[in-house]
């Protein structure tokens, strides 16, 4: 239990090791730790930002989706309207066309009837004349009796 030169030896060693620690150990370890701390803080901040961005994007997406749905509904609506319109138009056109065709057919029928009647009339006149000729046994002056015959024919 003697106090001797060991005291100074230890003081000297103490100074040396503290100096070594101050110079070669403390700064690099603390620098690395501080850098890591900063990195982690940055990472957390980035994650925060990203989650905020995500939320924003989700909101935006929902809004877009809603908008798109509305638009789609609008488009379908107008398409339906247009289809109905087209159908109506087609119907109208068809009716008109049918009417036209009908009218044309009727006109033709009438025409044909008239023609047939004309033909009949002319033939009736001729037949009547011929019949009368035969009945009378003499020729009838066509020009004299034409008006009479034609009057008869027109009454047919």
């Amino acid at each position, binding site marked *: 239990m003697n106090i001797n030169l060991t005291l100074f030896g*230890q003081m000297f060693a103490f100074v040396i090791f503290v100096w070594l620690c101050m110079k070669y150990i403390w700064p690099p370890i603390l620098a690395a730790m501080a850098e890591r701390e900063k990195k982690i803080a940055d990472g957390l901040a980035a994650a925060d930002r990203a989650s905020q961005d995500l939320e924003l994007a989700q909101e935006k997406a929902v809004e877009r989706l809603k908008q798109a749905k509305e638009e789609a509904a609008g488009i379908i609506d107008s398409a339906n309207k247009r289809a109905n319109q087209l159908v109506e138009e087609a119907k109208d056109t068809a009716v008109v066309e049918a009417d036209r065709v009908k009218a044309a057919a009727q006109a033709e029928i009438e025409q044909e009837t008239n023609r047939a009647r004309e033909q009949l009339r002319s033939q009736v006149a001729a037949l009547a004349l011929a019949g009368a000729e035969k009945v009378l046994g003499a020729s009838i002056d066509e020009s004299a009796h034409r008006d009479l015959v034609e009057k008869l024919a027109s009454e047919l």
Partner: protein
Amino acid sequence: MAAEGEALTVSGYITHHLTNLTYGKLPAGFQRYDGSVVDEGGLWTFAHGGVEASAMGFAAIHVDSMGWSIGLGIVFFLLFRNVAKKARAGVPSGLVNVIEMIVEFVDNTVKDTFHGHNKLVAPLALTVFVWVFLMNLMDLIPVDLFPELLLALGVPYQKIVPSTDPNITMGMAIGVFVLMLFYSVKVKGFGFAKELTLNPFKPPSKGPLIVIAPVLIALNLFMEVVGLLAKPFSLGMRLFGNMYAGEMIFILIAALFSAGWLWLAPAGVMQLIWAGFHILVITLQAFIFMVLTIVYLSMAHEDH
């Protein structure tokens, strides 16, 4: 077990364990353990036994304490330097994690206690903490292992726990004390002198009572100097006392082994229990030494 000149008794065993390997100068005319007398001019040699070590006086060195102390300091330095080189901002692993945990723990303790700006305090605290812890840790190595091994190699004495040597603990405490004085003067300048003389009794500066001012100043100076000197003394002696007492109990339990084979199992169990308890003591003492170092330096930086 015991070197020459010591009987193989329990007290001889204990004495042997408490003797440092001392290298020093024996004075002329000293009669050595083997009866020879030291020649004129003295003799530089290893001491055989406590009597010779005492006779060497101050001009001696505890080779074992110094060697283990510096060796453990080198272990500390290499271990931490290795990590300092590997430490990156990436994900730490294994040893780096452990070392960084210690560094962060010390850094937080320093930040909590020391409020000035000083680049020295934190590395100083780390060195003190780890180094003292490693020195204390030597206490957990079975007491007979290294002394017996080295005895077989011809080394007569070996104390492997440097912190059970008051030279070692006081050496560090005085180192801290020198830093305290240095920073007190550097930071406070003349204020340090005022601190030593104007407290706790404030001397009157005018009036008829001014005649007692010198008396009060002398009284203050005496009390403050005693208080100041008590700091390094208690710092070094606390560590020494705790470690010495702990080592003593290990030695006493080990001495039980010689009391017969019946004591083998109980003594073994006691060694284990005391070692388990001692883990707390060595850590706590290293921590206390570090905290007090920080506190003393913090006091040196702060004006009252």
